[in-house]
């Protein structure tokens, strides 16, 4: 039997995986010796679409594959037995090795067919649940405590502790919620796990339900992830057929049901109290804690809420023991963490590393360094609640405490790499615009304070900054942090504070010299065509707003009134005939 697998997660499909899948399907249509399967994302988004061919246990990973290459692979390798070396990414008869990575959460994504529960079961799936059911709930909680697992949704609270609180709340009804809202722009590990290994999340929720004494759970998934929702629905159905969800699970006294709630597009609903309000059908506004969800949560019942990645670790921990997890990582940050590499980095995608690895190794050894030979400027971590880490801090260890010390956070694990072409004031403005839009409006400082900060940043980017602006920003930042109820407001100023801390010179250049050193802020730059122009018309073709005029072989001109300063012409010109000033 020859197995062909194509990675058809959303990212794979966005790169054209469905066409590759269809091609293989067409080619193998009447061949009973070939099984064609779909799988999730193996994390190497930079070489998608990815396909794997396995002949008698020897696996070959190919990418990027298009329809033509698929045909070639089919003829030469599947039919001819000769791998097409040129497109081989990796080959093994065992598990793939990823340089400097350690995969626990991503143990199955990109390996199994997420729509087949048997694939999950064959890889130790639901073994953690079986082991848990043979123990007392308190023993299960002790194992999670011993593992050192901390919440992967951002705050890093010890998971076992949370379960303990929920367990000790006395009530006839309790809930488990899986937070799959993943609103942090730049993070996509939860999507990948839900699409590629949905059962691992369900298993974690089941174990949690058993440990805290709950019999009902909700997955709150954002509506932007239709494939994840589909896979979850399928997985729940299959698990029910096997008596892994439902009444008297695996013959025990434990019963548990799981529902799916679709988010409706509000970043603040990732915050746990807002999320629960929204599940109850209300406006998603955070409320004051205490009482914590473990005491009074969904419909005022004790509730335990964890992130997707947190739950995905739990089955593994129960199956393999606390030590299989806590042997990795640092003293206070145990285990592994998934990071989403994006931005100006060569090997963008998902990576899972031991906690404590230096940032430099993630970006250079795993991520392959900066795109197009450009210079590294900063890495943005933790999204709108996080900050930008500059080059001189690249040896910072990736763990909760060390990152916090820089002003950034581990957050949900988004790493957006910025190069010399990124303007740090613009980045700060980008995040403030985001949080300002997403503020629910409950707290005055979060609602109005972020608006005032955004206005100041807009002014600076427009070349109208004044010297007092930096002090005003700092002042507002401190007040917003102190006077907001939830972490959205409390952390909203972080992107501004870290850029001010490490890149104050860029702010000064905008304010004093009215210059944007990176050439991003449109009010401060102009594009003009110089005498090198040979009238090749390339720039004219790429201009999205038809601001460039000129006949062939004659020097072109840019109409400054029409130009939106997008820089498309500047990028397209092959002979440096366009000046950016």
């Amino acid at each position, binding site marked *: 039997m020859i197995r062909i697998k194509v990675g058809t997660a*959303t*990212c794979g*499909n*966005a*790169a054209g995986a469905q066409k590759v899948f269809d091609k293989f399907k067409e080619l193998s249509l009447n061949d009973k010796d070939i099984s064609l399967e779909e799988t999730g994302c193996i994390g190497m*988004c*930079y070489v*998608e679409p990815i396909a794997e061919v396995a002949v008698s246990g020897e696996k070959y990973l190919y990418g990027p594959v298009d329809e033509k290459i698929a045909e070639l692979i089919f003829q030469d390798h599947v039919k001819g037995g000769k791998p097409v070396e040129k497109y081989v990414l990796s080959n093994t008869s065992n598990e793939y090795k990823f340089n400097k990575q350690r995969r626990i959460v991503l143990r199955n994504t990109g390996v199994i067919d997420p729509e087949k529960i048997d694939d999950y079961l064959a890889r130790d799936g639901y073994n953690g649940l079986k082991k848990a059911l043979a123990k007392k709930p308190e023993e299960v909680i002790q194992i999670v405590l011993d593992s050192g697992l901390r919440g992967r949704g951002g705050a890093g609270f010890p998971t076992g502790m949370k379960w303990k609180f929920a367990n000790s709340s006395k009530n006839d009804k309790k809930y488990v919620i899986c937070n799959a809202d*993943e*609103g942090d*722009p*730049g*993070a*996509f590990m939860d*999507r990948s796990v839900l699409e590629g290994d949905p059962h691992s999340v369900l298993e974690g929720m089941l174990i949690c339900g058993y440990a805290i004494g709950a019999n009902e759970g909700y997955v709150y998934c954002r*509506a*932007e*992830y*239709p494939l994840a929702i589909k896979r979850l629905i399928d997985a729940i159905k299959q698990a029910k057929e096997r008596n892994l969800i439902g009444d008297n699970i695996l013959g025990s006294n434990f019963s548990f049901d799981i529902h799916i*709630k*679709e*988010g*409706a*597009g*509000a*970043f603040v609903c990732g915050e746990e109290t807002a999320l629960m309000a*929204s*599940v*109850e*059908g*209300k*406006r*998603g*506004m955070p409320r004051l804690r205490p009482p914590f969800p473990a005491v009074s949560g969904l*419909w005022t019942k004790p509730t335990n809420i964890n992130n997707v990645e947190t739950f995905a670790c739990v089955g593994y921990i129960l199956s393999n023991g606390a030590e299989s997890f806590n042997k990795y990582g640092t003293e206070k940050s145990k285990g592994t963490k998934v990071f*989403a*590499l*994006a*931005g*100006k980095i060569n090997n*963008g*995608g998902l990576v899972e590393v031991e906690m404590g690895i230096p940032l430099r190794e993630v970006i250079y050894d795993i991520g392959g360094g900066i795109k197009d030979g450009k210079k590294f400027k900063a890495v*943005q971590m933790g*999204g709108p609640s996080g900050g930008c880490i500059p080059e001189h801090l690249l040896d910072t260890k990736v763990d909760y405490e060390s990152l916090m010390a820089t002003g950034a956070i581990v957050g949900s694990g*988004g790493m*957006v790499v*910025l190069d010399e072409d*990124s303007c740090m004031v613009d980045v700060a403005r*980008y*995040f403030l615009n*985001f949080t300002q839009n997403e503020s*629910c409006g409950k707290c005055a400082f979060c609602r109005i304070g972020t608006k005032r900060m955004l206005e100041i940043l807009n002014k600076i980017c427009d070349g109208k900054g004044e010297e007092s602006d930096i002090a005003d920003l700092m002042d507002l930042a401190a007040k917003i942090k102190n006077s907001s109820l939830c972490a959205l407001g409390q952390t909203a100023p972080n992107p501004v504070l870290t850029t001010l801390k490490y890149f104050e010179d860029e702010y000064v250049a905008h304010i004093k010299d009215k210059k944007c050193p990176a050439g991003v802020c449109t009010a401060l730059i102009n594009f003009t065509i110089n005498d090198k122009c040979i009238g090749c018309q390339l720039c004219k073709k*790429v201009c*999205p*707003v*038809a601001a460039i005029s000129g006949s062939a072989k004659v020097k072109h001109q840019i109409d400054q009134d029409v130009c*939106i300063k*997008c*820089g*498309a012409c500047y990028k397209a010109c092959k002979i440096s005939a366009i000046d950016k000033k």
Partner: protein
Amino acid sequence: MIILINLLNMDKIMDNDKNKIKSIIDEYSGSKGALIPILQKTQATFGYLSEESMTIIAEALNISSSDVYGVATFFAQFRFTPVGKYVIRVCHGTACHVGGVKILDAMLKSKIGIKNGETTKDGLFTIQEVACLGCCSLAPVVMINDTTYGKLTNEKLGKIIDTYVQAEKEGKTL
């Protein structure tokens, strides 16, 4: 005369719509926290939430229509005007922001002639700005209805739009 016929037709459509909304509400009868799923299903059926539909929902759930409206306006997903057949969600997330979505966005808007939140006159496209579609390493990313497109350039996106336009001419739906 023509006006009268139109009015009669309207009434029929309304009745039909009312029944559709009622059957959506029935689907969720007895389940807790049903308001948002009902609004989502109603929007999926009609493309947007009309004032009438929200009133019907409020009455059926025995809550005030201002409560329904309050919830609906809180969430970015809900729309109160009809949308085009294809909703183009343009990602303005961090990676897409630094990955040059600005150029793409400008091209798209000038190509189909509408701004963010607007719908083309022929009712084919609506543009909606969103923050992160979860394919950040393929930035810039655009989603058309449920299909995601990554690693876009002006040329690639232009061609994709053309295929939708072409399909429409041939009476097909992508």
